[in-house]
């Protein structure tokens, strides 16, 4: 009997995670798998794309961003078609048609086409010297151009824009970040946190302008560009757009699948689209009208699909949008969302102006569960907070305890005692505390070896610190130390 055919469109991060999990679950024995990606190379680590500016592959060694190779896929039994686009889905014929004219039949179709950078249609956006930043090709182009530039304008003060700007600044170019709205990283931060991030990251040669809407871009006499912002002209050598992403949902639209009003192919809790044979995962999908644009929810969707295909269905219940990163040396960490209706929740804020620290935690008034938090400048207590958030644990006493140091709260309980075995450490790869404990018991007690064994911390990397602290608390308390509920958790 012919094995059912699984066709994956797109070979980005989520697509790769899906393949890896399906392989690990033994799926290759049951399915005939094909993956088609339009980028010239197999899946790579898009998240750390900006590290490519400094940490470049030389000719000999393999690309450090690569998540896989054609060879690996071949070993797994996955048929890979690189550098070719899927043009349309033919649901009648149950096949996809490629740009090169081929048609590939499917029993299960998985759309993992991701998202593309939005480039605002301001006059001059397409002039030479203007770039977007989403793909390896974008990165390469920028890398080559930056080598001849002294000044770069980054349009967009979201997380990606700032990370990119920071990476370019390290190459020695002057940066001007233009944020259209009044505050930076509006998706993650409240205005106060954003203001602190702004004042913390600004230095001579790294300028940030908020409420700065670009009206047009023109060529400058004698080379370079001029970015027009209000009454002010900024002369620069290049412009990079980092103004958000748009789900690549056109295949779904073309095939008449249900699409979310805000873009993204609508999926249910099993990652199924309106056609039960078609799944969508990652940035191209919209769950409850939300397309996350983050890797962890995409991975969770991918695992959901694997579980469907392997006959042990689990559900996707929404994505964890927590992030933790360093922007030009400044810690910025978020948990859940702090944008909650004030009437239903209690919010506590901690500000330490002298040390550039701002923290805020929001707790549901009725359930006393953590709904969100943000930390800028310092992220002590982040892991515990994240844990409470993921567990939906009930907080006893004031949420202020979650923000204040031991000096005020009394000594904290070692992590290994506060995290239950099924508490997640790495949400990208769904690695639990119990798994890490098992690794440690087996003698794997540093981050690198646990990462190799479990992939923990190899996704977005937010959990690296937590993994480190968890391992060291195991070291102090002994791997067999018991689990005790946290002091503030009920």
């Amino acid at each position, binding site marked *: 009997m012919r094995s059912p055919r699984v066709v994956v469109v797109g070979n980005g991060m989520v697509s790769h995670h899906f393949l890896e999990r399906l392989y690990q679950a033994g799926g290759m024995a049951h399915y005939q798998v094909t993956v088609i990606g339009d980028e010239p190379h197999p899946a790579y680590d898009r998240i750390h794309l900006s590290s490519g500016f400094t940490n470049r592959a030389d000719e000999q060694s393999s690309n450090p961003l690569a998540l896989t190779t054609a060879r690996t896929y071949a070993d797994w039994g996955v048929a890979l078609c690189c550098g070719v686009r899927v043009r349309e889905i033919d649901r009648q014929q149950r096949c996809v048609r490629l740009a090169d004219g081929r048609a590939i039949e499917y029993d299960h179709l998985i759309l993992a086409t991701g998202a593309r950078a939005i480039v605002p249609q301001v006059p001059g956006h397409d002039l030479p010297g203007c770039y977007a930043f989403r793909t390896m090709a974008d990165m390469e182009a920028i890398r080559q151009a930056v080598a001849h530039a002294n000044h770069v304008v980054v349009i967009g003060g979201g997380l990606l824009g700032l990370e990119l700007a920071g990476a370019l600044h390290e190459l020695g170019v002057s940066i001007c970040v233009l944020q259209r709205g009044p505050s930076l990283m509006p998706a993650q931060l409240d205005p106060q946190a954003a203001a602190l991030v702004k004042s913390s990251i600004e230095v001579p040669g790294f300028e940030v302008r908020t409420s700065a809407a670009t009206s047009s871009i023109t060529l400058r006499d004698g080379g370079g560009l001029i970015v027009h912002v209000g009454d002010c002209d900024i002369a620069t050598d290049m412009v990079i757009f980092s103004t958000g992403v748009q789900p690549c949902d056109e295949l779904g639209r073309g095939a008449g699948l249900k699409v979310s009003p805000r873009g993204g192919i609508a999926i249910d809790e099993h990652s199924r689209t309106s056609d039960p044979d078609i799944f969508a995962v990652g940035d191209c999908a919209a769950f409850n009208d939300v397309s996350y644009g983050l890797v962890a929810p995409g991975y969770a969707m991918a695992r959901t699909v694997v579980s469907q295909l392997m006959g042990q269905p689990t559900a996707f219940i929404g994505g964890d949008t927590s992030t933790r990163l360093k922007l030009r040396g400044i810690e910025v960490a978020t948990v859940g969302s702090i944008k909650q209706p*004030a009437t239903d929740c209690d919010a506590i*804020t901690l*500000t*330490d102006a*002298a040390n550039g620290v701002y923290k805020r935690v929001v707790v549901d008034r009725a359930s006393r569960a953590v709904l969100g938090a943000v930390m800028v400048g310092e992220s002590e207590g982040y892991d515990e907070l994240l844990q409470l958030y993921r567990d939906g644990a009930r907080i006893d006493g*004031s949420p*202020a305890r979650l923000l204040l140091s031991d*000096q*005020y709260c*009394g000594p904290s309980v070692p992590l290994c005692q506060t995290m239950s075995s099924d508490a997640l450490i790495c949400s990208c790869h769904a690695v639990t505390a119990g798994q890490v404990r098992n690794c440690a018991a087996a003698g794997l007690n540093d981050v690198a070896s646990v990462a190799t064994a479990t992939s923990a911390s190899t996704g977005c990397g937010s959990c690296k610190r937590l993994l480190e602290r968890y391992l060291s608390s195991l070291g102090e308390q002994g791997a067999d130390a018991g689990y005790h509920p946290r002091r503030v958790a009920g």
Partner: protein
Amino acid sequence: MDTNASVVDLAGVPLAPPRAVATTCPYCGVGCGVDMTLRDGRLLDVQGSTEHPANRGRLCVKGTWLHESTALRGRLTQPLIRGKPADWDSALDLIANYWRKVIDESGPDAVAIYGSGQLLSEDYYVANKLMKGFIGSGNMDTNSRLCMASAVVAYQRAFGADAVPCCYEDLEVTDLLILAGWNPAWTHPVLYQRIAAAKAARPELKIVVIDPRRTASVDIADLHLQLRPGTDAALFNGLLNAVVDAGALSHRFIDAHTNGLDACKTACAPWSLEHTADFCELPQSDLQTLYNWFINAPSTVTCWSQGLNQSTSGVNKGEAIINLHLATGRIGSPGSGPFSITGQPNAMGGREVGGLATQLAAHMQIDNPEHQALAGRFWNSETVARRAGYKAVDLFEAMLNGHVRAVWIAGTNPVASMPDSARVRQALRQCELVVVADCIADTDTARLADVVLPALTWGEKDGTATNSERCISRQRGRLQSAGDARPDWWMFAELGKRLGFGDAFAFNSPAQIFREHAALSGFENDGKRAFDIVGLANITDDDYESLQPVQWPVTASAAQGTARLFADGRFFTGDGRARFAIVQPEPPREARCNTWPLLLNTGRLRDQWHTMARTGSAPRLLAHIDRPWLYACAEDIECLGLVEGEVATVSSPRGSCLLQVRGDDGLRTGELFAPMHWNGQYASSANVGRLIAPRVDALSGQPELKQTAVMAKPFAVTTWARLVTADDIDPGSPDYWVRIPHQYGLIHDLAVSGPFDWQGWLTTRFGQPVQVVQSGSPGEDSHWVALAQGRVLGVLHVAAAFARLPAIESLMAAWQEAPVMAVIEAMLADDWARESGSADMVCACFRVNAEAIKAAIADGCDCVQAVGDRLKCGTRCGSCKPEINGLLRQSRLCNTPEGSPLAVGSVKKSPAAPDGAADCAGGPAGPVVGEAAYSL
């Protein structure tokens, strides 16, 4: 307090047994005797002296908690020259050199001393001797000018001497006691208690209160005449007219001892019952009641105080009262006399010494050549002053126009207490050399000084003070002095020496000064001058040390002192006869108009003293009324669009104040009341002095502090905040703030109009980096905690309305929590009991607030005694009894079907008072009350 001898300190070392030392209270003019309990130079406790004739063991709240206002905090401990620490010699040399230069260049009238009724007689004597005896200028005036200068002039004109005829006993033994412009329940609580006790023992004693406000003192009154402000002279003229009509004149006394009745009678004749009632806005029946009572009373004491004195026709009012007593011969006998009550503890001592710019010394007249010569002989000086100096208001004016180039201000805070304070400030800036001697480091006036000198204060300094009944008592200094502080007399003597008057200022002790002062009073006196204490001129140091309270005159014939003056009907005028005055009643100079349609009255509160330099730091004394309220009746509050608890801008042509509004149905419509105490250290802009015109009585120079035409408007507060800190902070820039020292921490209430960065403000209050934790969202009440080094430094609560702030009681209870996390959690929670605006500690001694008393009353406690048995309130000093009784009365009114609570407020004029106080006890509506629901 357990003061047994077997007490050990923390290290187990036995402490010296406590010692009791008798002294005198430094606050009001009652002059209560106080026994201090001391150990190792520390004041453990105070008790009312049972021996002292003024109080016989009683004390009011201020006296009872004297030991809580003697903390070293805020004390000035060393001389400062333009803000920099200096030694005494440099400071005094600088002053002396400058004074010498100014005197040489511009004459003696270019320097001045501005003293205070807080100084002791010895301090006063040396200052006055220096200025009037040697520098040769009349420019020694005092803040007594603001308090009883009008009474002084009235006495002088009538009796030929500034001589108070009465004694406190008269208040108890009289048949009719009239209290005019005097609220003893708050201003002289121990006298009030004596009166209340007398009333309880002798209910037939009739008490009449004449006051435009229904004050706490009305509690024991049989009749309250809530007259139009400033019309008292008309009322007394009308009364005298009625006495004439009734044929009740004492011709025997008039013929033997007075002059000028006829002209006086003529002046009173137009003041018929109808006209007077109309003019004073009083019901005729009430006036008639007073007339009847007065005409039929065998004896009468009429007490008056600031309500009458602080007026552009204050002398007139005093004279109108004196006329009545002369006309009926009710003077010089027990239970009779015109009795001016002084505010300050030693205003009387100042008058005796001659500390007013219009006096020379020891009851000698400054423009009398005979007296000039006499003083010159006694002091052995050629340069005795020949004419009156600048009176307070003129003195500051003279600094402004450069006539006075150097001033020494001792023991007073004119920037906070004078009218038109903006101008006073300007005057001090203008003046070339401003010296301020004070015990407190930061006062509004000291901020403008070139040289600041640290003075000893109560408990540290030695000397004498004279109270309202001419009783001279010792203040004894036993406490460790603060830093390098010195007595004021020493400073003036040092200045005298440096100005080259060495021999005359070689004083070593207060006793030595006192002997000289006593000798001067008797010098060539022979009964010509009322003030004579020659009997004390030769007392030894030991006698001085153990001097017992004694009422002057003290002479060979009256070695034990003199309780009453004029028993023999002999006065100190040339012919020995008292003079009737012609009184033409004048309304307040400042008239209301469309722009300034309200009348602002000012005065004292029960538990504060003057400009709060000392009492403000005693949490207990702020518990009663913790902020400067603007009081107004419900009708005005509504008409003006004000809201109780919120801030109002009160303005006059001279300036404006920000005060929180509070309802007081004891006020007439169109009239406001604000306390005079709050200085710039305790509130952002509550100094009512800046509103008041510097208009004075032409004769006494006393300013009209009681009636100012003003406007009041809502001040648009956008946010309120209540801050509690462990340590002192500078509130900085919010539009409105008041500072409230509390037992457990320092409270600031703040309000702003417009956007305000509370976080930035809080972060910068502590002089060190802090972490700030906040709960609450924009648009809601928010709660903030400032932390550093494991400690809570402060907590802030921000809300949209005053009534949304956490109530102080619950807030301070939470502030007290331990450990730190418990405080943080409590502060950030949003489950506060909110500010009710009426949690006044009625009883400061036992910290019982109005809410608790109301609850006890509701629970069946039906008299002051019962409430006291339940809650202890009123059982220590008793100052709060009138207020407890007021709450009882209020609840009775609420419960009587015919008397709704509204009725209390709607009565602006007294209804007819029934004859016989006992009958009207607890009457349903109106200020006529006679019930003494408590016994003392």
